[in-house]
């Protein structure tokens, strides 16, 4: 949960007027061109190409060159000389001053965990890995019934990104743990690609075996030793191992890809892992505006969530949730019913399952028909929802810090610290990533985030215009002015404000009365009924004063039944009054559910009429 280490870049101080930046995602490589026009920097052209981690290329730089070639064609600027990026600029139409990049091309995190007893330390290790957002591809245990060579073969063939070793209570027998370390050493685990780094291995078992494990695995792996996840039989201590997994993933695994070494040689500044770069941007927004913020970057293999509450920054990477490589895992985690609930038409289970699996095996494809788009939007809602739950579970106050408890806490005591995410205090949600940035209509991004996060009271929403936050994050480390200029003018698109009273009621029952006073003095007075979704146009840069008078059982932010007045900001969508209930209410009966979805989608003109 700590920020990834970003080494201060060293670069020469020539004027930087033309910048090409790429983000090598797991599925798509996105390139943008930034040029200094007059006194300010602007993002001018954009290109993208599939990330080339598959045969026959198996070289991430091929996708980079393809994406830059697209910019060349659009901008008529010569940037490539064969497989080389021309730096610095030679003239007004040749070369760029610097090439920078972020990377998350390595995709999700697939781990193997080991324990001594399968349903004790093995399960604890599995829980630690799942809690860190990994996909556990196997649990090896001394008593799992497999012979040593079968375990060794399994480690080799599965090619895990990381191994978590646990086993034994502190002070207990060390034999089985050492035996497992021997098997791992015999397997000579290697990273999936390249030899630029050793396979990360975390040891979180019996502390008495640490010396022997170091001796056996210290040379062969990038060994990290942390506290035992099962120090005594009846106590589970997952946080240290979980945090270690998270940090190592960001620092060592995520950005790696076939051809990564070549990419390092091409760039003019150190490559940043995508979540580290996006985290920088999110943190900057929150600090500059003094806001409580939740940010999300939903990618193909991972979904990264960022939050800043009361100045405390947190970042989590759910390396098991995404819209291409990990799409089937969203189905496995969320369950079919949870995905189906957002689809505004009836579709049989078999067809939906086949479509999701086809996206998993062909991750670079895009929806071509409206129903395919609606299915992807349904899956995105669940990926966003699950990633926020994951974030909430990890963004907690420090464990062990004494917390004042009231009598009500007795019923929901949290064992590992209280989450810092307070949706009532949330000011702004920022969305990024392909499915949000490239949604054909901005309202689609807004509603996806509202449905997934269920913001309470008054919440502003914004989206990364064409997905360039990673690029700007790495740019901010070398040229803050360029990053800020582009961020303000070309990147951040304010969608508008969501007003969602807290409470539930039957469809058609009164929820609240409200009044909107626009900048020009125009006033709108209306009623919000449960089941309503009401949009109002309020342009970006405009403000309005909104007063909500909720019914007795409903809370608009000032307490049940209390009126609340707030200045709200507009955006490309505007104001959205959400009377669908908090918690969100969706009819259980399929035809009623489809009817409700269609009513809401029509109310906000979500999709073209088909």
């Amino acid at each position, binding site marked *: 949960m700590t920020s990834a280490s970003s080494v201060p870049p060293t670069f020469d101080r020539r004027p930087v007027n033309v910048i090409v930046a790429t983000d090598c995602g797991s599925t798509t490589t996105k390139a943008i061109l930034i040029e200094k026009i007059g006194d300010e920097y602007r993002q001018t052209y954009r290109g993208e*190409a*599939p*990330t080339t*981690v*598959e*045969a*026959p290329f*198996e070289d991430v730089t091929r996708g980079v*060159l*393809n994406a830059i070639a*697209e910019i060349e*064609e659009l901008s008529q600027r010569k940037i490539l000389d064969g497989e080389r990026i021309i730096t610095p600029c030679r003239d007004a139409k040749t070369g760029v001053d610097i090439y920078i990049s972020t990377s998350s*091309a390595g*995709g999700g995190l*697939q781990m193997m965990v080991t324990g001594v007893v399968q349903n004790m330390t093995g399960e604890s290790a599995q829980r630690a890995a799942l809690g860190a957002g990994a*996909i556990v591809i196997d649990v090896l245990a001394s008593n799992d019934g497999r*012979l040593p*060579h079968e375990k*060794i073969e*399994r480690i*080799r*063939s599965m*090619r895990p990104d990381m191994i978590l070793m646990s086993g034994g209570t502190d002070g207990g027998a060390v034999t089985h743990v050492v035996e497992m370390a021997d098997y791992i050493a*015999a*397997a000579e685990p290697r990273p*999936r*690609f390249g030899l630029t780094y050793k396979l990360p291995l975390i040891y979180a078992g019996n502390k008495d075996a640490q010396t022997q494990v170091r001796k056996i695995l210290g040379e062969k792996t990038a060994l990290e030793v942390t506290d035992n996840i099962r120090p005594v039989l009846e106590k589970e201590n997952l946080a240290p191992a979980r945090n270690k997994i998270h940090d190592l993933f960001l620092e060592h695994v995520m950005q*790696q*890809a*076939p051809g990564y070494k070549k990419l390092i040689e091409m760039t003019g500044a150190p490559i940043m892992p995508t979540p580290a770069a996006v985290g920088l941007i999110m943190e900057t927004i929150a600090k500059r505006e003094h806001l409580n913020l939740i940010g999300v970057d939903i990618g193909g*293999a991972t979904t990264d969530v960022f939050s800043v509450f009361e100045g405390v920054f947190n970042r989590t990477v759910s390396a*098991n949730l995404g819209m291409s*490589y*990990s799409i*089937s895992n969203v189905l*496995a985690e969320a369950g079919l019913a949870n995905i189906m609930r957002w689809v505004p038409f009836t579709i049989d*289970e*078999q*067809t939906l*399952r*086949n*479509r*999701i*699996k*086809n996206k*998993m*095996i*062909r*991750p670079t*494809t*895009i929806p*071509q*028909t*409206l129903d*395919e788009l609606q299915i992807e939007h349904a899956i995105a809602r669940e990926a966003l929802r699950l990633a926020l739950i994951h974030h909430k579970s990890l963004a907690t106050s420090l464990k062990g810090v004494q917390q004042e408890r009231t009598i009500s806490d007795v019923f929901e005591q949290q064992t590992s610290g209280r989450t810092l995410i307070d949706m009532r205090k949330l000011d702004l949600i920022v969305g990024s990533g392909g499915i949000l940035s*490239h949604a*054909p*209509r901005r309202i689609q991004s807004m509603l996806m985030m509202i449905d997934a996060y269920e913001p309470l009271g008054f919440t502003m929403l914004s989206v990364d215009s064409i997905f360039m936050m990673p690029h700007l994050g790495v740019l901010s480390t070398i040229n803050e002015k360029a990053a800020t200029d582009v961020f303000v003018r070309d990147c951040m698109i304010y969608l508008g404000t969501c007003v969602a009273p807290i409470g539930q009621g039957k469809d058609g029952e009164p929820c609240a009365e409200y009044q909107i006073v626009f900048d020009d003095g125009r006033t709108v007075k209306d009623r919000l009924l449960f089941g309503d979704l009401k949009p109002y146009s309020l342009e970006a840069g405009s403000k309005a004063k909104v007063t909500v008078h909720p019914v007795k059982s409903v809370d608009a932010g000032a307490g049940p039944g209390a009126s609340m007045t707030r200045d709200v900001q507009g955006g490309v969508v505007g104001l959205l009054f959400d009377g669908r209930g908090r918690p969100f209410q969706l009819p259980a009966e399929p035809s009623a559910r489809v009817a409700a979805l269609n009513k809401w989608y029509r109310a906000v003109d979500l999709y*073209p009429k*088909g």
Partner: protein
Amino acid sequence: MAHSYTPGLAVADRTVIKRRRLLPLPGTLLVKIGDRVRSHQTVARAELPGKVYPVNLANQLSIAPDEIKEYLVKKEGDTVAKDEILAENKPLIKWFKTEIRSPVAGTIESLSEVTGQVLLREPPRVLNLLAYIDGTIVETIPRQGVLVEATCSLVQGIFGIGGEVWGELQVAVASPDEPLGPGHLKPDMKGKIVVGGSFLPAETMARAKELGIAGLVVGGIHDKDLRALLGYDLGVAITGSEQVGFTLILTEGFGTIPMASKTFRLLSAHNGQKASISGSTQIRAGVIRPEIIIPRSAVTTDAPAEGERTGIRLGDAVRIIRDPLFGKIGEVSALPSDLARIPTESDVRVLEVTFADGARAVIPRTNIEVIEG
């Protein structure tokens, strides 16, 4: 803007491939560089030391530990069969005789006059590393394994489950759009690799298991049948170690999708020949796809090394890999450079595909794959 495209899977009539074969433990190589090997041939062998079983003779015979040698029937280093007498006492009355029998077959590794224990070790387990494909050894890695090279026909699948198997290739359907029904499977297909057409229903999977069919190669299956077969929902595409009774390779995807005619023609042309297949799939950076390898004679010199493609071109054969035309095959007939608006309202790079019947369709470039080979 010819760069945004998805490279297709290999469907090559003749190519040269290399496969690395490694032992899980250090062992002995049984072949040398230049040797011709067959898929089922052992190329290296390792021995996994047998398990150790302690037997406390002193306790069981109620004697002092330093007396055990006097009661032993066998001595250190001797082999023993299961239930063979290890030690016995010699009482005056036969009725009081105690015999200690070996709980396992193995050898007597050691005995201790301090603890009164005998350590028995089971025979080593021999691990044979097989060649997997018919080919030639081109590299040896001392004590670890070999590199096998083969001239072959190669078909890559899109997804598979199960490990390496080999057997005679048997095309069981008449056309690539014919589903592989249970009736297509016959008892004489035991141990063979059966090629179907567009779809493999659950009943055929059950029949294949019953008949002992080694491998199935088909266009598509339903995800729900895969879930039933595996017993769980596959979250990410990392497979290869499943044990469902056969190895399964999909050439097209999930649903009923006719096998690409080029793939079907190639497999049909080798009907009756031996093939090695692996269902191992890893769809993530550093992709592994399932494969069907049909050995060919290496006499001709036209086995091409895989050439690097620089982009998509007019006339290229392509397969559409996303609904609504998923699985259809055609030729690229136009490559407009401008963005085009598709029914989702997205503006994307597209191309035009012309199908065999003359019909045309505009498809996002990311939704096609070039048919390689």
